[in-house]
């Protein structure tokens, strides 16, 4: 139904422009298109898996991801590339070079924003800090308080990016580190309740910053079947509003397709996670119309 309305409006706009004189563009609804690409839990997988691998034979590889990302950027210049954490650990590249190559490659791929996963503390918080000069992209985390650590001021709760006049707010959420990471690794990093922080963040980004798009980079995990009340992306999605997309990580969940979830305001939004090891790339396309008509609140999500 909503999709039909959208198609109808598009057709109307197209007719108007085709008759068009000079004055017409101001009456035409301008369309905007933002593409979000994302990875999670790449775990130092720089090269593709070997042909002999039992599960992921010949999959992944950063040099191939670059080809894919570049072709999508050619299609739509208004593209963001994001990562939901656990960039470090998993191959000797990390053990020998401490994440230097991972960050350099991500910079070359022009990643825009990433959040911090538990394994990104594997060389301790200083090990992560030491590699930051190799990262030409920003880290966001809203529920890790780094005030008393070396990361203070280097990690912001959120970042706002303007693309083609579309204001995009990206905030980060990290998993509870206690019992998952040795305290001597994360030092004085303080963990704050992700749900409360997400509710705050989405309000700030939507109501105060007037973002057109709110994206959460989460390393909380998709969902915990054996502990269904534990905070996870699905629970976060249901209990918040104004978040358009949660890009998840941590649980290495290979979803068959992105998940549509109804949020606390009874609106549909998206949760996506693309497994691990750079095997998959997530792609979400947001299409906007400019208008003053409040009644056209409807949005269609196709997965």
């Amino acid at each position, binding site marked *: 139904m909503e999709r039909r309305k959208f198609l109808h409006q598009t057709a109307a706009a197209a007719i108007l422009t085709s008759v068009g004189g*000079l*004055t017409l563009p*101001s009456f035409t609804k*301008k369309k*905007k298109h933002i593409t979000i690409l994302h990875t999670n839990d790449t775990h130092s997988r*720089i*090269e593709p898996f070997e042909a002999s691998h039992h599960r992921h034979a010949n*999959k*992944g*590889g950063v*040099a*191939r991801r670059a*080809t*894919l990302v*570049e072709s999508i950027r050619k299609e739509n210049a208004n593209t963001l590339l994001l990562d939901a954490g656990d960039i470090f*650990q*998993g191959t*000797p*590249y990390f*053990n*020998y*070079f401490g994440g230097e*190559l991972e960050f350099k*490659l991500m910079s*070359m791929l022009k990643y825009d924003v990433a959040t911090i996963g538990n394994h990104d503390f*594997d*060389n301790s918080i200083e090990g992560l800090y030491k590699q930051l000069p190799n990262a030409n992209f920003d880290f966001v985390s809203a529920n890790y308080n780094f005030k008393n650590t070396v990361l203070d001021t280097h990690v912001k709760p959120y970042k706002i990016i303007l693309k083609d*006049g*579309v204001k995009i707010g990206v905030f980060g959420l990290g998993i509870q580190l*206690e*019992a*998952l990471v*040795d*305290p001597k690794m994360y030092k004085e990093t303080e963990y704050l309740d992700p749900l409360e922080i997400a509710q705050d963040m989405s309000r700030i980004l939507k109501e105060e910053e007037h973002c*057109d798009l709110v994206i959460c980079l989460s390393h909380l995990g998709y969902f915990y079947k054996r502990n269904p009340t534990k905070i996870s992306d699905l629970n976060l999605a249901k209990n918040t509003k104004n978040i*358009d997309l949660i890009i998840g990580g941590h649980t290495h969940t290979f*979803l*068959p*397709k*992105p998940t549509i979830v109804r949020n606390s305001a009874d609106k549909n939004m*998206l949760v996506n996670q693309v497994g691990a090891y*750079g*095997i998959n*790339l*997530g*792609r*979400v*396309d*947001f*299409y*906007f*119309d*400019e*208008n*003053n008509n409040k009644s*056209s*609140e409807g*949005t269609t*999500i*196709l997965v």
Partner: protein
Amino acid sequence: MKKALLVFSLLLLFVGCEKKKLHLVKTTAEIITIDSTFAENPAYKKLIAPYKNKMITEINTVISYAPKNINRYDGKLQSSLGNLLADLCYERANVIFKERTRKEIDFSMFNYGGIRASISKGTVTNKNPFELMPFENSLVVVELSGKKVAELVDYFIKNKSAHPLSKNIELLINTDKSYQLKINNQKFDLTENYFVLTSDYLQSGGDKMDFFKNPISLFKTDYKMRHAIIDEFKSLDTLRTSLDNRVILN
């Protein structure tokens, strides 16, 4: 006239832009698998190459020899690989512990899940320790009360996994789950304290080994498990290990 109209309409357009709100009308989403149909961008391969070459040289260096396949699942509640790792960590950490505290470690315990690969028969290279132990875990010694050691044994029996235990242990488990335990040939004493070697990961509550939390005393060796494995393998021409009587199921 035409120009004025253009300026006016552009003005209208800009003013309009300021006030106009963007409405999200459609979202599409998909997951794209990266496989060999995507060509490798040569610029990226060029950046990777020097790192790769350095890593390969390092990794392919032969450090020992395995006369048979050594894995973590060839026994009941113990394994040839688990025994090898628990023993070598014990030996290597005990030297450090003795030197600094003049005491001896009583035994070591690690987790089955922490062993991430097997060792295949043949040459052993630097690659093997990385595969066995990809994590940056360090060795720690905890001083536990006899009561906590009893909790450790209960966990071990209930958990039914071949969590690596060092050769200092002789644990006989009966079908009714009762047990007899000897530590260094001495009958286990509930009133004694014991020094147990484990990893910092498990000590801080990993794998729900809660008996390691809040120990009477904690000694950090600052020696990574993987480094202990590399150092030991380098010192041995041949890796020898077997199943023995450290855990016996009655």
